[in-house]
């Protein structure tokens, strides 16, 4: 593994305890809400915050290990960071920002500038290379920050909310460009974000951090189909329902809803319903789908070429269905309008808790 870390950091009453591994060329997304410890983790990896316990290894070298009294300062770690807000140096041109790390690594001025020019070209900003950071747009500044972090060819690249400061349209463009630029980077990558779309779109694996602890690690597919907490389920948009199996037949009571499951369970359970498994009907459906409830449309959302329809079934219970735009118009779905939803028993995943 290119990066192997077990990090324990205590800041006041907050403790971060996380383990992670990232391979060369792999991108791990660290996903979590504000205050989960994402930035703390990133600062620890970068060497801006010494860890209190555990170890951090980058490549073959141990860069932080309090027990062994090893602490390599940030300038001697082979780690590049794209900071939130980019933190471009305001008194330098875009090119000199990119050349900064090269100069600090001992390159002469002209060689550093030549290399910086090549990097600036690679991110498509040759015509902006003499501009000061404040003259750059958000997307341009982000690309300069990316070029600056990659200039020293680090083993590990850390990206702290690299898209958070951008507006919606720029985000989509910049996300695509970032994929492209990062595709040429050979080292390990860690993307810190609170936005699941960034994580799903860019990462090979996702680590979900909540309250300073890792709640789940897996590929985007694993995480979206098998989220292990409400937070993760909400984040990746899978229906996660808490209920009680009555033991009578294969029934689970969730609020006012009674679900029929494929197998028999007893006690408290969580039921996971993939949004794609939820079928919408204009009227009560006939046939085999025994899980059918009337509800009210409580929200329509775009997700790429799909539409996510939130249906309020009863007080406190809502189910998200993912359907095609055609289905939305065929069913005449409008916010607040009536709709029936149906799920096959075999599509429900039930986990006892």
């Amino acid at each position, binding site marked *: 593994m290119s990066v192997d870390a077990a990090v324990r950091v205590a800041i006041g009453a907050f403790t971060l305890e996380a383990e992670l591994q990232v391979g060369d060329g792999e991108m791990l997304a660290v996903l979590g809400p504000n205050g*989960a410890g994402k930035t703390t983790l990133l600062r620890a990896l*970068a*060497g*801006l915050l010494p860890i209190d316990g555990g170890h951090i290894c980058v490549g073959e070298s141990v860069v932080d290990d309090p027990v062994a009294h090893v602490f390599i300062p*940030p*300038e*001697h770690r082979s780690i590049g960071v794209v900071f939130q807000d980019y*933190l471009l*140096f305001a008194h330098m041109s875009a090119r000199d920002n990119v050349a900064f790390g090269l100069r*600090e690594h001992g390159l002469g001025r002209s060689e550093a500038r030549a290399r910086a020019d090549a990097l600036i070209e690679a991110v498509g900003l040759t015509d902006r290379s003499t501009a000061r950071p404040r003259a750059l747009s958000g997307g341009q500044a982000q690309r300069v920050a990316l070029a600056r972090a990659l200039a020293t060819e680090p083993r590990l690249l850390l990206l702290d909310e690299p898209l958070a400061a951008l507006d919606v349209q720029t985000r989509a463009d910049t996300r695509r460009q970032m994929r492209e630029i990062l595709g040429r980077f050979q080292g390990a990558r860690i993307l810190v974000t609170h936005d699941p779309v960034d994580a799903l779109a860019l990462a090979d694996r996702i680590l979900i951090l909540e309250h300073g602890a890792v709640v789940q690690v897996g590929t985007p597919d694993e995480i979206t189909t098998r989220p292990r907490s409400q937070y993760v389920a909400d984040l990746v948009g899978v229906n996660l329902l808490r209920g009680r199996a009555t033991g009578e037949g294969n029934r689970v009571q969730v609020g006012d809803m009674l679900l029929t499951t494929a197998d028999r369970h007893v006690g408290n359970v969580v039921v996971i319903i993939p949004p794609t498994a939820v079928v919408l009907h204009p009227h009560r459906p006939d046939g085999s789908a025994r899980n059918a409830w009337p509800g009210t449309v409580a929200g329509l959302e775009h997700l790429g070429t799909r539409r996510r329809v939130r249906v309020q079934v009863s007080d406190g219970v809502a189910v998200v269905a993912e359907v095609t735009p055609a289905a939305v118009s065929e069913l005449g779905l409008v916010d607040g309008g009536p709709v029936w939803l149906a799920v096959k028993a075999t599509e429900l995943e039930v986990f006892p808790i």
Partner: protein
Amino acid sequence: MGVPTRTEAPARRNTPGRESAPTSVIVLAALGALFFLIPLAGLLWRAPWSAVWTTLSSHDAQTALRLSLVTSLASTGIAIVLGVPLAWVQARVAYPGRRLVRAVTILPMVLPPVVGGIALLLAFGRRGLVGQPLDRVGVHLPFHVLGAIAAETFVAMPFLVLTVEAAFRSADRRYEDAARTLGASRLSVFRRITLPTIRPALIAGAVLCWARALGEFGATITFAGNAAGKTQTLPLFVYIKLEEGNTDAAIMLSLVLLAVSLVVLVSLRDRWLSVL
């Protein structure tokens, strides 16, 4: 951890020019402004313009002027070399006694300069705490040009330290973090990131310090004495001329000091002094 959200600059509520002032306030404000203006006008009105050349070209005046420039620039240099690191430590390092050190470094701003001069004399005079050992190695500050420089530095350095310290305190440290991750050593970060960031404050502080050093009188005459060509700076020279009854020369040389101060203030006004 938490995502520091970028805070927008709040809308300025105290925009000048929006308010109509009560008459009584305007009268008092005008009196206040006149109090500054009238002495300047008096100086200009009484200036013996016909004697400009003879006064300014006199050997003694030129010596005093040259000495003033040399000592004030030297003390500004010393203030930068010692004051910037001091400001950095005060802004960035938490140590016991920091408040005390801050109070002591600001003290010369509020202390009567004569008192400062006496204190310097007791410390660096021939029989002083530090003066005695210095004397043995052949360094004599009192009544020497070095003494004038020391007196000016003592009085003027606080202006630089205060200004620069505030800038160090308010500089966004995350830029320094960014530079560290790019391979810059702490010293390199200071030189290439921190210093350029605080440059406006450093320039403002240095100029204020220089202007204060140029006008220094009390501490200099007490500690360094009034030796022509050695410690007799322009303010001392003006005072002596006045004592001798040579009012014309005193006025002319006062105008020189006034002109220098005005040029400095006006040239700095918009670009640098806003950081204060």
